[in-house]
């Protein structure tokens, strides 16, 4: 489509404005992370740190148990992602292939679960987990994360299953392969990229999650990264900016890297679930 030159200039100006709006807070975070305490205390902060230092990172690790927290986050997020995908894939398969009442109920649950405020879910969950002695335990957190990751995982996986032509499965059945055999050797390999993308997405959501972790984990040795990050902010809202920025920057890296890898698949999967082509 031809667009006039002034139109083009306007479009680039708008795009530039968007780029600035999207990027500047993150750049400021990075910049703050490398500034010395003296520089942070002085008026007239600059974009480029005057004398860049790694002190904030060292201090962040000294002040809070960041390694431990990262370990907890890694454990909870990986376990939740793997379990969620393992149990969601078969259900997604049934939802995509059979238009039964059960499949419809599952779709209904996916939608309804998005509408309920977490308070209504967390209070009963808290009571249930308390009875099972799973408060302040990563096992309890993983259970919650699995169920919490399921709606979106199902949504994406249903889309991926629909993209696998039924003809392939029928051909395998004609060749005498049983149902399980067909699923394992025909459908599963074709689904694999989608399953990996879904697992990685579940991992990021769990890695980033804050509310459940805040309510369910009481002691510092169990807490995950987002909860520990808030400990840098004091009771009066006064924060030690340097270490806070450094820790926040580190906590973001895994999500950013994974997201960069799977971004295309996620958006594809989201729409595949919504409007089938």
């Amino acid at each position, binding site marked *: *489509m031809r*667009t006039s030159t002034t*139109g083009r200039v306007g*479009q680039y100006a708008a*795009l530039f404005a*968007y*780029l600035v709006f*999207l*990027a*500047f*807070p*993150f750049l*400021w*975070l990075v910049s*703050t992370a490398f500034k010395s305490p003296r520089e942070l205390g002085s*008026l*007239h*902060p600059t974009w480029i740190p005057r004398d860049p230092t790694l002190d904030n990172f060292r201090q962040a690790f000294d002040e809070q148990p960041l390694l431990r927290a990262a370990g907890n986050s890694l454990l909870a997020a990986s376990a939740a992602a793997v379990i969620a995908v393992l149990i969601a894939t078969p*259900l997604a*398969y*049934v939802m995509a*292939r*059979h238009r*039964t009442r059960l499949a419809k109920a599952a779709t209904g*649950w996916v*939608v309804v*679960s998005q*509408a309920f*405020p977490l*308070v*209504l*879910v*967390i*209070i*009963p969950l808290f009571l*249930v987990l308390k009875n099972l002695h799973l408060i302040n335990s990563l096992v309890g957190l993983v259970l919650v994360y*699995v*169920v919490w990751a*399921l709606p979106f995982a199902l949504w994406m996986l249903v889309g991926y299953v629909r993209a696998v032509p*039924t003809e392939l499965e029928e051909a395998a059945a004609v060749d005498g392969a049983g149902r399980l055999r067909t699923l394992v050797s025909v459908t599963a390999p074709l689904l694999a990229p989608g399953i990996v993308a879904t697992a990685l997405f579940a991992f990021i959501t769990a*890695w980033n999650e*804050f*509310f459940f972790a805040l*309510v369910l984990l009481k002691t510092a040795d169990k807490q995950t990264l*987002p909860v520990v990050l808030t400990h840098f*902010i004091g009771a009066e*809202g006064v924060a030690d*900016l340097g270490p*806070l920025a450094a820790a*926040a920057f580190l*906590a*973001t890296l895994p999500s950013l890297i994974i*997201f*960069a890898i799977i*971004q295309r698949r996620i*958006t594809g999967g989201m729409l595949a*679930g*919504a*409007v*089938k082509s």
Partner: protein
Amino acid sequence: MTLVTATERSAQGAPRAEGDRRPPDRGAWFLVLPALIPILVLSVGPLLYGILLAFTDAQSGRTRATQWIGGLNFQDLLHDTLFWESFRIGLVWAVGVTVPQFLLALGLALLLDQDLKLRWLARALAIIPWAMPEVVVGVMWRLVYNPDAGVLNETLRTFGLGDGRDWLSGLSTALPAVIVVGVWAGMPQTTVTLLAGLQNTPRELHEAAAMDGAGAWRRFRTVTWPALRPVALAITALNFIWNFNSFALVYVLTSGGPGGRTRLPMLFAYEEAFRYGQFGYAAAMGLVMVAVISLLLALFLVGRLKERTGGDRA
């Protein structure tokens, strides 16, 4: 709701071989159960339990047995001005975030759909807010808003627009300041969804309209928007729900302050439940939140759908 209708509609459009209506055989149960049990035990069950709790006087750490008190929580809630003030702030926040979020995202999606250079950079940057933990987003904007070491006040000073202020603790600036953060954080996901919707609109129609001499606005109204509409409605409805129920961002930015000016309903209910231990009362708040939001959304969606069958045809 919209998403369901979207799937159903497309399913009706094309009867497919896979639309197998037979009840699933034993093998299918084997496939379904591993997910069904956790869903029932840890999602559906707790949800129903939560609804029941709203009608009890459940409290944390109490030895006396919990009692059924009927609608008493709701009666108390009706007169709880603090809660309704929080509810009002929640609505201002949800609308204040969802509407700009949609408009800005639509603008960006339309730009990214064009053949512009630097598109890849914008796509890459759009990932950042989406992938970030909400806590980090909050921390990051605290650094931006910081009265001394923050970039916002420094920029204002550079341009001679005064000394700036303490944005997050000012009574009048706190809510607008957190709304900006909400828009920033949710824009990318909306953009990506709308962009995917745009790329599904028929190119040929667009070109035909251009040949007929339709201007950009006409082309948008007659070709792009009708195709984009279902996606736009779905993501707006979801954004509204998500925003109304949001917690972490504001918890990190202001913890509801100053003086409750940014205390969203979720923060209010969280404090009620886990600081004061009023489980039953907090559950009642949750229930009222769902009810009002569902009602508003139903009105919004019905209104939009009517508009679609009525006006657009001209």
